[in-house]
Each structure stands twice: as C-alpha cells, then as structure tokens.
C-alpha cells in the first residue's frame, strides 16, 4: 500500500503549493478564472509560473507562450519514458498525457523495483491526486490573494521568484548546471535594459540549447 501513501503525500504537498500559484497569478494581474484555467488546462507548475512571470514583468503573450512551452518540453520526454509502462489505449492517452508531469513520472519511476503494476498505480494515483489538489488550491490561493489587496505588501511579488528558485535548486546538482545558471543570470540581466520583457528569459533558453547542442 506504500505506493498509495506516497502518491497521496506527494499530491497533498505539491497540491498545496498551488495556492502560491493562484496568489501569484492574481499579483500578476490575471483574473481568478484565468488562474484556474491555467491550472486546469496547462497543468505544469513551472510553465504556469513562467506564463504569469513573463506577463507580470510586462512581456508579450508570445514570449510567455514560448517560455512556458520550452519549460514543458521535458513532459514530452516523461511521456516517452512512461509509454512502455502505461501502454495506454488511444483514448486513455488523451487523459494520461495531461497528467504526465514531474510528480506522476517521479513516483512511477520510484516504484520500478516493484514491477509495472505498481509503477502504473504510482503514475495514475499521483497524477490524478496532484491534479485535484493543485486545482483546488489554485482557486483558494487566487481567492485569498484577491481578498488581501496590494500584492507587494504581502510579499507576493517575491513569492514568484522564490517559487522558481525552489524548482531550480534541486537541478543545480553538478558543476555544469551551476555554470550554466551563472551564465543565464549574466545574460538575462545584461539584456534587461535593452530589450522588451520576456526576451532575456528566452535568450537564456537559447543559450541552453546552444551549449547542449555543441557539447
């Protein structure tokens, strides 16, 4: 039964974090409906924060879409990794694809010693659990932020970069990643005074593609 427990605890902790997204979306002048739609339809934490982060900083819609999509490309590789485990019918795939994210893949892979059946359980329990709680807490966070007024007075404008930092931190595992992070900071900040908002962030992604390609 431990896969059920794992799935539930991941769903609750990650889901609760949806309240930070809901609140941050309101701080970036999205409506409650838009915040909820992002959680229902986009459903990928980092990409959702990217949309509100880029738009909130005054960036164009196209920049927000591009940043969000590039951050979401890893979900395609998760789907690829999970396909032989899940063996979904075409119809089931339409649902399974939506919940193919960091957490569902992570819990599924953590069960690989216990066989395919447990991996499948891990994927579906976690994916559905995170979906339910993430959306619930997005709504609560958005309504809460709407009620309190001035986002800066409540630190919401710092919650967005802190959320990004929390997502980034576990990825800075080796020297190469840390070096790339430093280059991304330098490049994006150098560009800020000269280009419109959103471009410095996309430039960092291009830098990553260039380095990954050439190495």
């Amino acid at each position, binding site marked *: 039964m431990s896969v059920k427990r794992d799935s539930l605890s991941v769903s609750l902790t990650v889901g609760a974090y949806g309240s930070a997204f809901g609140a941050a979306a309101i701080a970036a002048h999205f409506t409650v409906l838009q915040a909820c739609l992002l959680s229902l339809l986009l459903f990928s934490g980092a990409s959702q924060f990217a949309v509100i982060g880029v738009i909130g900083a005054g960036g164009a819609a196209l920049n*927000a879409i591009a940043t969000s999509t590039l951050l979401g490309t890893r979900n395609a*590789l998760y789907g690829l990794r999970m396909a032989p485990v899940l063996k979904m019918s075409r119809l089931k795939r339409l649902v399974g694809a939506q919940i193919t994210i960091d957490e569902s893949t992570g819990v599924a892979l953590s069960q690989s010693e216990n066989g395919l059946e447990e991996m499948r359980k891990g994927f579906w329990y976690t994916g559905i659990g995170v979906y339910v709680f993430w959306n619930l807490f997005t709504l609560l966070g958005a309504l809460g932020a709407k009620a309190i007024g001035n986002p800066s007075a409540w630190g919401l404008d710092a919650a967005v970069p802190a959320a990004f930092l929390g997502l980034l931190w576990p990825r800075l595992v080796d020297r190469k990643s840390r070096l*790339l*992070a430093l280059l991304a900071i330098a490049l994006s900040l150098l560009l*800020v005074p000269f280009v419109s*908002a959103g471009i410095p962030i996309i430039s*960092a*992604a291009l830098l990553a593609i260039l380095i990954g390609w050439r190495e």
Partner: protein
Amino acid sequence: MNKYWIAVSGASAFAYAVKLFGASVPESWLAHPRITRINIFIPVALLTALVAVNTLADKTKLVIDHRSAGIAAAITLLIAKAPFPVVVLGAAITSAIIYRIN
C-alpha cells in the same frame, strides 16, 4: 482578446500538444543524447533567468528592492534544506516586512 487570454490559451494548447506528442511518438525519435542533454539544460537556464529577472528587473531597469530581501531569505532556507512551501512563505514574509518598513 487581450494578452492575458492569448497567453493562457496559447500556453495551455502548446503544453498539452507537447505532452501528447511525447506519449505518442516512437521512442527512437527522441532518444538522442543531444536531446537528453538539451532537455536537462533548458529548465536550468530558464528557471535561473526567471529568478534573476523577477527579482531584479523593474520593467527595463535593474533594481535591488524588497524582492531581493525575499530571495536572500529563500536561498538561506534552501541551504538549510527547508521544504518547498516554507521557502516560498519565508521569501514572501521577508519581502513584505521590508516593503512595509520602506
């Protein structure tokens, strides 16, 4: 349609397309070391840039304000291995205090 709606619908559509694509293509399509490497690098670079810009940029100016204090608190909490929600909450509280003092 304003840019908020364009961003919400566009980003959502592409996100789902990417997920469905990954679940549908033959494995050999994406199983290339170059793709794997780029896939690890993109989130690192994007998330770092998002932290930097959302902390230090005010439109096209670079500023050090209450948000920097919040991020300093977040870094401290991450080094102390605090859980995710505590990091975000700590950053928000610190930033709010500095904002109100000013």
